[in-house]
């Protein structure tokens, strides 16, 4: 494997990590601040992608679709909060898991009824259709670079919001000790709603970004949700910084594992066995990494919650 190929794979891993971060950021806040397990976070990513597909088809422009899909995702998140999640904050985790799982089923089926079962496509924005030749015969799509840039900018904005603003301070305080914040006279329910809506919008944003490179289809968020949970557990529940680093770590481990593992296995095994074992091992790799990290740091890399 050449150095260029390794660099390209690093870039691929980075881009996956960025998408994961956008999903995991909302999830970790909701889980951390409200102690609320929201399995339906993945469908909010899907809903964002569907909004993008819908608005792109209506307006014919990706940028307009992005502009319209973000508030739509926010409103949709708030609507879900109002209709369903609000009534679950005081219930135990099992009730939350059950109810939010129900939301997954309803929404997956719902988008199918509205948009049909066939995958939809969102065209690339015109300005970002090309690619940069990173190695012989391979273009790195400009759009993927834009995802990395957009994700990093969002991460910076989030850092600023959480670390430098009053709301951010309340969010951090809420993640550390929510009852105490409420006792100090902060309307914790409203804070929850803000955090929830914002998290839903971030997941929706990830969906919009992913729509032009991945197919928009029912259930598209379900697999990413599992990875997002891995990310927030590794990063430490409630920690934005942890989610960011863990997302990049998971993205890189997943991508590099997939590309290197079969070659690595070839050192010990016959080619056909190496392919099978390599493919199997690489899909396990992030879970192995998670287990290893949790063995040394049971609360994740950057624990937030006061124990």
């Amino acid at each position, binding site marked *: 494997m050449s150095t260029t190929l390794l660099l390209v794979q690093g870039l691929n891993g980075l881009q996956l990590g960025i998408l994961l971060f956008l999903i995991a950021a909302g999830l970790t806040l909701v889980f951390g601040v409200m102690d609320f397990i929201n399995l339906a976070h993945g469908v909010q990513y899907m809903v964002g992608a569907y909004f993008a597909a819908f608005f792109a088809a209506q307006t014919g422009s990706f940028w307009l679709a992005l502009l319209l899909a973000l508030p739509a995702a926010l409103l949709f998140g708030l609507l879900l909060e109002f209709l369903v999640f609000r009534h679950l904050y005081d219930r135990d985790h099992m009730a939350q898991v059950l109810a939010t799982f129900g939301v997954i089923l309803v929404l997956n089926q719902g988008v199918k009824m509205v948009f049909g079962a066939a995958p939809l*496509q969102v065209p690339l924005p015109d300005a970002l259709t090309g690619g940069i030749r990173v190695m012989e*015969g391979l273009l790195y799509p400009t759009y993927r670079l834009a995802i990395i840039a957009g994700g990093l900018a969002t991460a910076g904005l989030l850092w600023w919001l959480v670390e430098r603003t009053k709301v951010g301070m309340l969010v951090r305080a809420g993640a550390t000790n929510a009852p105490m914040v409420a006792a100090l006279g902060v309307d914790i329910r409203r804070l929850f709603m803000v955090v929830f809506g914002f998290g839903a919008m971030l997941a929706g944003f990830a969906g919009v970004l992913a729509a032009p490179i991945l197919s928009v289809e029912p259930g598209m968020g379900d697999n990413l949700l599992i990875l997002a949970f891995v990310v927030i557990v590794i990063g430490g529940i409630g920690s934005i910084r942890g989610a960011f680093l863990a997302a990049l770590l998971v993205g890189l481990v997943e991508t*590099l594992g997939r590309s290197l593992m079969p070659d690595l296995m070839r050192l010990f095994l016959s080619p056909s066995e190496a392919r099978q074992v390599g493919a199997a091992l690489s899909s396990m790799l992030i879970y192995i990494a998670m287990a290893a990290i949790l063995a040394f740091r049971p609360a994740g890399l950057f624990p937030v919650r006061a124990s």
Partner: protein
Amino acid sequence: MTMRIELGRRAALGLGASALAMPLVARAQAAPVKVGLVAVLTGPQASLGTHLRDGFMLGMRHLENRLGGRGAEVLVIDDELRPDAAVTKVRAAIERDRCDVIVGVVFSNILAAIMRPVTEAQTFLISTNAGPSPFAGRGCNPFFFATSYVNDQNHAVMGQAAQDAGYRRVMIMTPNYQAGRDAAAGFKSRYRGEVVDEIYTPLTQLDFSAELARIAAARPDALFTFMPGGLGVNLVRQYRQAGLGNIPFLSAFTVDEAVLPAQGDAAVGFFTGTTWTPTLPNEQNARFVRDFEGQFNYVPASYAAHAYDSAFLLDSAIRRTGGNMADKGALRAAIKAADFRSVRGNFAFGANHFPVQDFWLAKVAKRADGKFQTEHERKVFDNVTDPFAAECRMPAG
């Protein structure tokens, strides 16, 4: 009708199922033929099931809702792509709703699950898509017919096509599960050149950027792949975006009309191995495609075409027996005769109840109206019997 079913249910409750069988036989001739149509209609793969259902329904419409001169009723069953759900629903269709024949099934695992319950009830099962090789070989069954293909055949078509095109180095990429490994094996059964590498990806993988970089680094003469449904949408678009479009894209079940609307321009010029395309020049096909698009407003895929054929197959068979569905031997012979005009042109059943038919190399094209379809390029196999037929010792029904 409703009342009679009510009475029948009460009788069944009171006297057991044997009492119920009597009046049913007596009115068998007058009652409509009942077809249980099994397709996946929920979940991510539902678009394939929708093609299948719409294809069969169009066939019924063209036959004016009659099969072989008798009125017909179609009971649509959503298998949910869950074998347990499929078995429960199909059992109910046979035992409670008294379906005379079960038709459909997109996925092989669903077919494998309902195979025994249906055939052991001495009910004919006609697969319009799924064609796992065991059922064509040692596991062939007197109550089972397939109007589609053996799964491996489409892959072998691409292997032969790659061989014919003179590609010397081919890379293979498929999902890491049984059908994916079968696809690679099917391709290699006909391809004699060098396989540079085989990549197996998790079934849930959405982003192929890491694999595309590996393909670009290996610079093969062509790529062979099998990525059904949404996997194919992602792969095709990312393949094009990564600038790999100049490496010929050979595939099976990856670029077809079920996913082309989402793949769009990215898929144009990509190859697939198939039994059927909307462009095959025969009258039956022209009418099918025209009316299908007219009624459902999308371009049919082979799932729809095979299902449409199956409606005409049933019609021809029931006509042959004079409407009699009770004599299983006569009905079997009538189905096996395949005395109908297929949208594929050539169509006959082999000894293992799988089709003997042509296979085509097809290429994706954009039509003048902006829609996408596969167009046949050249015939790769002429009137071919599947390689598993020789292993079949068809038991007498």
